[in-house]
């Protein structure tokens, strides 16, 4: 009895540990950073489309998340993280790291510039979305696997 419950505890602990480890895999970290960026863009998109009323706090929070996350993003591609966890990162990320970083910088500067100007109404949020969108697809087209 004691032995089996002990085994159970060990199994449970190792399960926890492995999921905790997976959380820290760079592939997962960078995917989560991107998901948060996606959610932030979504919050602004809802305003731009008129689904939600304009809310300066939401816009500011979204732009802040985008800029914080994209700044951390290029550091999540250490050697050895080229594959696994369904990563969509293409080999070119490691072949042209400076270009990759400068693309990330571009989104960072864009988000910072928007924060400084602070889009003040629905139309301005729409314009902000336009500027962010061009940066997103530019980088995705080069560095991310195509969806089928």
């Amino acid at each position, binding site marked *: 009895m004691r032995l089996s419950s002990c085994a159970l505890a060990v199994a449970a602990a190792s399960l926890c540990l492995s999921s905790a480890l997976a959380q820290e895999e760079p592939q997962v970290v960078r995917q989560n950073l991107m998901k948060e960026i*996606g*959610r932030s*863009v*979504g919050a602004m*998109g809802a305003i*731009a*489309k*008129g*689904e939600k009323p304009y809310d300066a706090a939401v816009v500011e929070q979204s732009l802040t998340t985008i800029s914080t996350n994209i700044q951390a993003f290029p550091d999540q591609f250490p050697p050895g993280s080229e594959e696994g966890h369904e990563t969509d990162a293409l080999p070119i990320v490691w072949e042209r790291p400076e270009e990759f970083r400068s693309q990330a910088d571009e989104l960072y500067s864009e988000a910072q510039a928007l924060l400084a100007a602070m889009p003040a109404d629905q139309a301005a949020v*729409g314009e902000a*979305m*336009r500027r*962010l*969108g*061009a940066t*997103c*697809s*530019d980088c*995705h*087209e080069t560095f991310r696997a*195509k*969806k*089928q």
Partner: protein
Amino acid sequence: MALRWPRVLGAGAAVIVLGAAVLWYGSAPRPASAETWEGLGEPEFARGEALFWAGGCTGCHAADGAKGEEVRILSGGLALTSPFGTFHVPNISSDPEAGIGAWTLAEFGNAMTRGVGRDGEHLYPSFPYTSYVRMSPADVNDLYGYLQTLPASGNVTPPHDLPFPYNMRMALGPWKFLFFADEPRVEIASADDRIRRGQFLVEGPGHCGECHTPRNALGGLKTDLWLAGAANPEGEGRIPNITPGSRSVGSWSEADLVSYFETGFTPDYDSVGGSMVEVQQNLSHLPQEDLAAIAAYLKAVPARE
């Protein structure tokens, strides 16, 4: 009895000669009448610019990878690979030598809406006059006027690289007979002004169907599968179905579509991909009512799965 065969043969030969003559005449390049392009007055440059973005001229006619203001330099040079060979996109900048700066409106209009080149030759439908034929002479005048305001480029582009038999322009005559018409692609009984505007933009200058509609073995559009998705002409993957029956975009609302055209974000806030990236960047220059018209039309076309 002995006399009949030569007669039959003679009649047969006459039929063949006549047939060839009809085919020759019937398939000759046919420019519009000269007066089509007369008396159109001064072009409206703003309308011309909207047509320029709707048509995405820059997608093929600017240098590969052009960004920002460079997309207005229509120097040509992009190589379009296809099952029929490689098409080299010409320089249509305002340069009088290398570009089309010295063309008359009639020459430009006949290329755009009749698929007839400056020397009276058939043009290949890799240049989508099969869509542009839906533009009016006034549209052509406005667009041409606008193009002439764009920078000149001295870039000289190579001729198309097509194997036999596709290098025979004469064969385009029968091809046009089969696949080239100015009729609407779909009939939408309930169309209001907005949908009609969308229909013009999509079926005409926007030439969306050229990639989003599948083609038959001769390269003609399968119009019963209008906008139902097709093999990617540039290679891998598929160009999506954009009718209301589409599994990927059928559920998008008109507002989703407009937002996608404006920003490049899908409804789940992923970014636009593939060859649609530059199409979207061009569309984002259009006034919102035009984008709404395109969305309304896409929601009104017959659903295909």
